């Protein structure tokens, strides 16, 4: 077993709750009024994010006279480990000893900390370099302070492991002893910063540091959204309109008020759909504890007006989407002449694929605590969007941002759901209304039924083959209601950030490629779900590759490599108006067919592609570039004669560029296999009469431990300081379901074109 170094930690949210927000005594690198903005040695899309990045050491680092170094984690922690990994970058670059580092969670304040939207697999991609700069500046200020103290040239001193050493004389001063003097040094200009040579990294790339919350998590002390307790706090659950766009007509609180512990029943303001992340409205039951509030809500009688989406029905909607996919739609990419090439092709392979709505179902259902006092509000909330939540609270309550404090707790899973702060706004509205702190708790049924769902989509691909079996034409139609429909009424087409997730950026070496996006109208709230449109697009593309292999009697891996083509930077051509590329500059993050080939070849090698298997077993392979990372997966599946599937082994190769914490990359990829398995086997929310028909783990199952792969191997490649870092949290998910379903085909001959798999294997 590896030995891990356990740091001490502080959590601003907990401290704030216990003794009020305050600055830790002994802070000497105090934050200035205006933060210095970050620059990057390689350009990233961070500058285009709201409030960009900040690389000022005075914002992120404080050194106490006793030598304790406090480093701010400015982004949310939902399980990816960024709350550990980003401060670890600062510590490494400044030569701090991790066992003498405290990590402190920042409140929502993007002017001070830079962008805090913890989504899009961006934390390391956008903040690795600013955090290195923070650490380097702090180190150089400490070195300057020591050199002055000793009256020697700064070139003669060196920071090593929490102290500065004068090499010639052997004199040493600890960081704590230098803290006051270091704080008086001017902050080193970004252009003058000397970053460490990567070969001298002590923590970056090593995977020897465990997450800062590990001890608290294993002892029940870790603080999540519902764990804040304030004096006089009331507990609320809310009955919300069952149909999006519906509203309250009337309610009878009589029986609810009879439940012991229920104190009040009141309306919660709703906002007309679409309204971004504003609350759905409804009726709140307020009680002395959550259990009483839930029982009170069960007794509540409410009459709703279902509104315009009352007829939303997943069966008929599926037929509409599939019909649209069989007709021409808006052309979003056009190279060569795919229409003509399909007509003259020797053979055309057609695949129609369907992927339903998914619900996020993080283990922690949404919950938040709010306390409105006078014209100010303070919240404790598990939000992926600390800055956005602050802005939305200010707008909703009609107060300036400066009167809003967002304390960020740990997130009990996020997966995109907690980028939407409706549950925090509910708590704030209720606290304002009753004049007391309020905790709003969503039940699991609330979470599943009132989610911002993953879209639902029909994908249709036609591949035209020449006589030799080579693919010469590719037409992919993708029909799915867009996330934009949650923001603006009438949005009917996928946005560039959806089209760019595996549709128009398809990296294949085919002369004639045409991508189309027929219209789709949303009838519920659509939102980001881990990996987003990469799931349906990747499923369709990677299943089609295996279908082509089968149609031509060839090995799926060989066909995949042939389609990717030679190592090159892929140019999608001028017909794609906005490639998006995850918001990154293409120069830093090109679509690199060589790296895509690289993960396929690596996983085929390590995963022993082509190995002989027992009867009833099969291997499937898939690769997908998403969040500017490259991931390939091989799944071995076993299907018994009753259709029960088990997974003896999974191998995944990831190239995410320069990496910081390989131990957490492994955990993300292991988890991505489980989430991919869940969505492939079970993931589906259906609608009837406008209502979501599932509500809890009985009718919306997710994978359990007895279904987990027996072996999960993760192969990380691409570490090198010259490759900019890319995403880790999301890219593992998209290749899993197609690799699994390709394996099922290899094992059984049954082609899965519609998710979830459900009972499809039982009929074989």
């Amino acid at each position, binding site marked *: 077993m590896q030995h891990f170094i356990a740091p001490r930690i502080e959590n601003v949210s907990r401290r704030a709750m216990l003794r009020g927000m305050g600055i830790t005594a002994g802070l000497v690198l105090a934050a200035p009024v205006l933060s210095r903005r970050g620059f990057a040695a390689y350009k990233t899309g961070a500058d285009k994010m709201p409030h960009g990045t900040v690389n000022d050491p005075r914002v992120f680092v404080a050194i106490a006279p006793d030598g304790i170094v406090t480093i701010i984690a400015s982004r949310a922690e939902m399980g990816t480990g960024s709350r550990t990994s980003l401060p670890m970058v600062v510590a490494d670059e400044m030569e701090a000893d991790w066992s003498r580092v405290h990590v402190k969670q920042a409140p929502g304040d993007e002017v001070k900390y830079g962008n805090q939207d913890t989504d899009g697999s961006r934390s390391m991609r956008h903040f690795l370099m600013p955090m290195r700069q923070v650490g380097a500046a702090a180190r150089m200020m400490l070195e300057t302070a020591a050199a002055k103290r000793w009256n020697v040239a700064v070139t003669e001193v060196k920071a090593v492991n929490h102290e500065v050493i004068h090499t010639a004389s052997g004199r040493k001063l600890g960081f704590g002893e230098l803290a006051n003097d270091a704080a008086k040094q001017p902050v080193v200009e970004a252009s003058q910063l000397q970053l460490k040579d990567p070969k001298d990294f002590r923590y970056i790339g090593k995977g020897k540091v465990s997450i800062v919350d*590990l001890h608290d998590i294993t002892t*029940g002390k870790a603080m999540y959204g519902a764990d804040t307790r304030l004096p006089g706090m009331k507990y609320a659950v809310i009955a919300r309109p069952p149909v999006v766009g519906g509203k309250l007509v009337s309610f009878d609180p009589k029986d609810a008020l009879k439940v012991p512990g229920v104190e009040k029943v009141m309306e919660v303001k709703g906002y007309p759909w679409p309204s971004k992340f504003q609350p759905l409205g409804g009726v709140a039951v307020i009680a002395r*504890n959550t259990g*009483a509030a839930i029982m009170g809500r069960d007794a509540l009688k409410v009459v709703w007006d279902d509104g315009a989406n009352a007829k939303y029905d997943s069966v008929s909607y599926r037929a509409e989407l599939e019909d649209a996919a069989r007709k021409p739609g808006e052309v979003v990419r056009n190279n060569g002449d795919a229409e003509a090439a399909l007509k003259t092709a020797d053979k055309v392979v057609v695949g129609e694929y369907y992927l339903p709505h998914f619900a996020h179902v993080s283990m922690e259902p949404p919950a938040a605590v709010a306390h409105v006092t006078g014209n100010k509000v303070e919240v404790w909330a598990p939000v992926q969007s600390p800055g956005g939540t602050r802005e939305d609270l200010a707008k909703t309550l009609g107060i300036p941002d400066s009167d809003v404090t967002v304390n960020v707790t740990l997130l009990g899973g996020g997966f995109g759901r907690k980028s939407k702060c409706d549950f925090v706004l509910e708590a704030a509205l209720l606290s304002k209304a009753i004049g007391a702190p309020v905790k709003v708790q969503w*039940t699991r049924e609330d979470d599943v039924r009132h989610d911002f769902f993953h879209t639902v989509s029909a994908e249709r691909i036609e591949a035209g083959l020449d006589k030799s079996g080579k693919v010469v034409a590719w037409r992919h139609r993708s029909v799915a209601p867009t996330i934009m429909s949650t923001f603006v009424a009438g949005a009917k087409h996928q946005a560039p950030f959806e089209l760019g997730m595996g549709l128009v950026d398809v990296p294949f070496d085919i002369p004639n490629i045409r991508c189309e996006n027929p219209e789709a109208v949303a009838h519920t709230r659509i939102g980001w779900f881990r990996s987003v449109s990469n799931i349906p697009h990747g499923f369709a593309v990677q299943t089609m590759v295996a279908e082509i292999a089968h149609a031509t009697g060839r090995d799926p891996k060989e066909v995949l490599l042939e389609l990717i083509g030679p190592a090159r930077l892929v140019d999608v051509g001028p017909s794609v108006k906005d490639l998006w590329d995850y918001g990154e500059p293409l120069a830093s993050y090109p679509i690199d067919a060589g790296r895509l080939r690289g993960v396929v070849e690596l996983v085929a090698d390590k995963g022993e592609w082509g190995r002989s298997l027992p009867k009833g077993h099969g291997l499937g392979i898939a690769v997908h570039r998403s969040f500017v990372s490259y991931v390939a997966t091989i799944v071995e599946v076993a299907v018994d004669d009753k259709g029960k599937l088990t997974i003896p082994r999974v191998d995944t190769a990831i190239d995410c560029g320069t990496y910081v914490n390989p131990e957490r990359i492994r955990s993300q990829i*292991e988890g991505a*296999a489980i*989430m991919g398995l869940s969505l492939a086997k079970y993931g589906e929310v259906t609608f009837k009469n406008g209502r979501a028909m599932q509500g809890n783990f009985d009718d919306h199952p997710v994978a359990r431990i007895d279904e987990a792969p027996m072996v999960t191997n993760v192969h990380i490649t691409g570490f090198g300081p010259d490759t900019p870092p890319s995403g880790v949290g999301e890219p593992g998910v998209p290749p899993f379901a197609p690799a699994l379903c390709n394996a099922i085909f290899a094992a059984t001959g049954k082609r899965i074109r519609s998710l979830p798999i459900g009972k499809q294997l039982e009929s074989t």
Partner: protein
Amino acid sequence: MIKLTVNGQERSWDGDPSLPLLWYLRDEAGLTGTKFGCGKALCGACTVHVEGQAARSCITPMSDLAGQKVTTIEGLDAHGDHPVQKAWREVNVPQCGFCQAGQIMQASALLLQNPHPSHDEIRESMSGNICRCGCYQRIEEAVRVAATGA
């Protein structure tokens, strides 16, 4: 008035006897380490020990607990060093961590009943506890480490 023992401390509850133990622990006793995940004994996030046996606190009414001994994650070991907790840290199990208190309580109850569970027994016993982050591979390994000490 219901009298019970929580983590070795005697307590009493004179409110609604049908209140699930989960909400008594979290909202009335201030022991927030036990988590709410489903409310229907489907996910195991709320697992505690009642008289040494794993129990889903979300469906256990206070009326069932008169004279009973309840142990929560906070009381599993005074220093947080129960072999299962140590194994969880050694294997670096958690991602978001939300389900882990329930997982640890389930695993520690398993090892009380069956100190040397097989691979299949670990999977079966832990299958009532959901982890959406997907730490299952490591949970299995950590239970094995806790059982074998290596």
